[in-house]
C-alpha cells in the first residue's frame, strides 16, 4: 500500500482482519485433506459414531491392508494407467503437428481457430458422452480401453492444442528459416529444430493431459458397465457407503497427481527457450 492510504477506516479494518482471514482460508483449504487421510487411518469406532473426534484416537492400517489384499485395486489401477498413458501419447501425436500449423497461421484465421477450440469447451459433456455411448454400445466398445481412450481424446485434444499453440508461438520463425537456409527440408526443420525446442512445453501439456485423463469421471461413467477405472471404483465405494475404502481409494487417486504436479513445477521453471535464441 502506498503512503497516505494507510490510515482511513477501511485500511484499519483490513489490517485487523488480515491475519484472521489468512488463518481461516488455510483452515478451510487444509481440513478436508486432513479428514480424508484421517478417515482412511481411523478405526470404525472413531468414525461411525454420532460424535466423531477431530483427532485420530484409534489408529489402524486395516483399511489400507484391505485395499491391497482385496484384489480390487490392481485392475482399475491398470485400466486408468493404460488409458491415461495411451490418451497422452495419441493426443501429442495428433495435436502437436496441428498446433504448430495453427501457430503459424495468419492472425485472423488463427484467432477463429482458437475460438472454435474454445467453443468445444462450452458443450456439456453429458451431451457429447450420450451419442458416443449409444454408438460405442453398437460397436461393442463399452468397457474397453480403446473406447475410453477415444472418448478422452475428444475431451483432451482441444485443450492440449490450446496449450501447444501458445508454446509454438513463442518459437521464432527465424529458427526454422535459418535451418532451411542451411539446406534442411521443411520436415527436417520441424523435426530437428522446432520440436526439440518445444519439448518442455510439450512435456507440460502431456502431464496436464495425463492427469485429466487419470481423473476423468463423466465419460468413464457413460462408457463403463463393469470394468471400472480408478475414479469409478472410488465412486462405487462412496455409493456403497463404505467410508474407509472410499477414503483409501481417493488417497490413491490423489498420489500420482501430487507427484506429477511436483514435476510440472520444475518444468515450468526451465528457461529452455531463451538459450536457443541467444545461441
Amino acid at each position, binding site marked *: 500500500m502506498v503512503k497516505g492510504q494507510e490510515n482511513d477506516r477501511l485500511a484499519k479494518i483490513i489490517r485487523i482482519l488480515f491475519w484472521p482471514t489468512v488463518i481461516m482460508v488455510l483452515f478451510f483449504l487444509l481440513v478436508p485433506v486432513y479428514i480424508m487421510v484421517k478417515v482412511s487411518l481411523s478405526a470404525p469406532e472413531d468414525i461411525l459414531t454420532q460424535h466423531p473426534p477431530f483427532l485420530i484416537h484409534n489408529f489402524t492400517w486395516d483399511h489400507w491392508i484391505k485395499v491391497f489384499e482385496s484384489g480390487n485395486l490392481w485392475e482399475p489401477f491398470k485400466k486408468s494407467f493404460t488409458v491415461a498413458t495411451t490418451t497422452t501419447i495419441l493426443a501429442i501425436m495428433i495435436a502437436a503437428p496441428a498446433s504448430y500449423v495453427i501457430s503459424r497461421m495468419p492472425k485472423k484465421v488463427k484467432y477463429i481457430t482458437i475460438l472454435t477450440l474454445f467453443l468445444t469447451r462450452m458443450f456439456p459433456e453429458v451431451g457429447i458422452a*450420450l451419442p458416443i455411448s449409444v454408438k460405442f454400445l453398437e460397436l461393442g466398445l463399452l468397457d474397453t480401453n480403446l473406447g475410453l481412450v477415444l472418448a478422452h481424446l*475428444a475431451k483432451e485434444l482441444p485443450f492440449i492444442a490450446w496449450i501447444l499453440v501458445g508454446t509454438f508461438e513463442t518459437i521464432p520463425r527465424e529458427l526454422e528459416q535459418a535451418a532451411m537456409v542451411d539446406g534442411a527440408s521443411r520436415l527436417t526443420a520441424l523435426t530437428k529444430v522446432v520440436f526439440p525446442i518445444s519439448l518442455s512445453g510439450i512435456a507440460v501439456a502431456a502431464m496436464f493431459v495425463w492427469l485429466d485423463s487419470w481423473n476423468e469421471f463423466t465419460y468413464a461413467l457413460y462408457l463403463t458397465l463393469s470394468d471400472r477405472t480408478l475414479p469409478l471404483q472410488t465412486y462405487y465405494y462412496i455409493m456403497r457407503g463404505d467410508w474407509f475404502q472410499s477414503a483409501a481409494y481417493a488417497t490413491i487417486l490423489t498420489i500420482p497427481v*501430487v507427484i506429477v504436479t511436483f514435476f510440472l513445477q520444475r518444468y515450468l521453471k526451465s528457461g529452455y527457450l531463451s538459450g536457443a535464441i541467444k545461441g
Partner: protein
Amino acid sequence: MLKNFGWKTIKKYKLEIAMLTPLVLYIIGLTFVPIFNTILMSFQDPLTKEFGTLDNYKYIFGRPEFKDAFKNTLLITAIGLTLEMTFGLIIALMLMKKFRGRGLFRAVLLVPLGVPTLVSAVMLTYVFNTNGYLNELLYRLNLIQVPIDWAGGGMKTILMIVVADMWKVTPMIVLLLLAGLESISDDVYEASAIDGASTWQTFWNVTLPLLKPSITIALILRAIDAFRIFELPMVLAGRSTPVLSTYAYQEYNSYNNPYTSAAGSTILLVLILIFILGYLFIVEREKGVK
C-alpha cells in the same frame, strides 16, 4: 490462406494440411458430430424415430425433477460464482501484499488444484455427512443440538455443493486474478495516492476497472464449468438435488431413455450459450457507451 483455394494452394501447403487434418477430423467427428446428434435426438420420437417432435421436451418439462434440476443449476451457478469471485478477489488482493508466510499461503492455496474433483467430493462427504465433521463442530460450539441433514435437499444442499465447488475452484480464480493484478503498474497506485484517494476509492476506481479483462475471463470459464457441474452433485447429493447434467445422466442411465436425456443436454447447451452471449453483449455495450 483461404483465398484462391485450389490445387495450387493445396500443393503448396500439403505438409500443413497433412499436419492439421487429423486434429480437425477428430474434433469434428467426436465433438461436433455428437453434439449435433444430441440436438437431433432431442427432437426425435423414441418409438417411430421420426424427427420434428417436441414430445421429449414436453415430457421433461412435465417432470418435477427437471424443474428442480433447472432451478438448482441456476442457483448453484449464481451463488457459486458470486462467492467464488468475491473470495477469489479478496485472496488475490491479500497475496499482493508482502507478509510473513506469504510463500506458504500461496503453496497451500495450490493444494485444491492438485486434488481431483471426484476426490474433493469424497472429502466433503465426510465433512457434510449427518454424522460428519461440520455437524460435530457446530454441536461442540453449541450452535445445534440435532444434526443437520445437509444432503436432504433444498437450500442447504445447494449451499453444500457451492462450498464443495468453492473449495476446488477458488484457487484457480485467485491465480487468474493475481496475474491480472500483477500486470497493473505501481505508477497508477502512486498517482491515485497523490490525488488523495482513499483505500476504497483506489480499489473501486483504479483496481477494479483495470482488472476487468481478467475478471471477464475468470467469470466465463467458471460459469461454463458451473453450468456443467456433474461430479460434485452426483457424489454429494445423489438424487435429492439434481442439476441439469445429472438429470440428463439419470434419464439415460436409470430410465434408459437417450431421447429425453438429449433434450436435457440441449437445454443445458442453450443455457450456456445464452449466458456467454448475454454477458459478452453487456460487456461490449458498456464499452460502446463509454
